């Protein structure tokens, strides 16, 4: 190549070189962006999971009714043992 008198046309190689350089850089920048986006989504989800559970809201009227029925039929339930099992 170096003994020829006219300048060779090597523009195809030059274009290929610059195209590959830009594609590789663009892919890397895109990977940085996508990884950051995914990690941000993970952080949001994990922070939601990490929040303490809110206290359960109860209806006061229903709560009162529940306590009344409980006191009316307040029977002690014997645990099932070998002795009591005979009766069943």
């Amino acid at each position, binding site marked *: 190549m170096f003994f020829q008198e006219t300048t060779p046309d090597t523009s195809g*190689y030059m274009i290929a070189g610059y195209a590959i350089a830009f594609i590789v850089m663009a892919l890397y920048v895109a990977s940085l962006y996508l990884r950051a986006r995914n990690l941000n989504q993970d952080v949001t989800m994990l922070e939601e999971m990490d929040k303490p559970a809110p206290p359960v809201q109860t209806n006061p009227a229903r709560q009162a009714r529940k306590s009344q029925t409980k006191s009316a039929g307040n029977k002690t339930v014997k645990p099932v043992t070998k002795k009591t099992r005979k009766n069943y």
Partner: protein
Amino acid sequence: MQPKPVALKVLDVAAIILLAISTYLALVFAPKELVMGDVQRVFYFHIGTAWTALLGFILAAIFSVVYLVNKDLKWDRLQVAAIEVSLIFFLITIVLGSIWARPAWNTWWTWDPRLTTAAVTELIYVAYFMLRQGIDDPDRRARFGAVYALIGGLSAPITFFAIRLFRTIHPVVIGGTNPEADGGFSMTADMRVAFFFALFAFTVIFIDLFWNRIRLGNLQDKVEQLKLKISM
């Protein structure tokens, strides 16, 4: 994630503008080299990416030493960021060199000392990420990574000096008079402008990508900590 600092936003824009100017200088402003033709223009990006990549590998070795002394995971994240960006830049260097070699040396690849050391360096750092993937414990991963990056860092100066120490056909454009070299050329004043501007532009682009990658590392660390907190 914390919002992007203004300085980083400015750096992002500056990096894009500098890349555009550098491309213009390389493709339009710099004159065509008479012996090789247009393919010589890949030299500006080839050297720009090579310079920053080798610098990044050496920086990573320095961060490794600091991590091994301090045991602070912040230095591990800096090390990973430097190596990842350098690996991408060095891949571009090797591909551009190969494309240049096809018309200049009539081959895509030859096992010349410079090309061999460059390929070994790239593979060393690919293996670095494979090593890290295989270790779950963050402290252990950081310690192994630091030792590996420290030893791997030796490959950067070896690659740089390969064309100055061994018989090679790779040209030494800056400060070299190697009679064995094939494809060397003398730079004109305009070529020097494009060359030094490319070095500057790629240094800024490297810093920008490095900073963005550090932020990504911080985010990864946050996710790992949150996962650990929830699982406990």
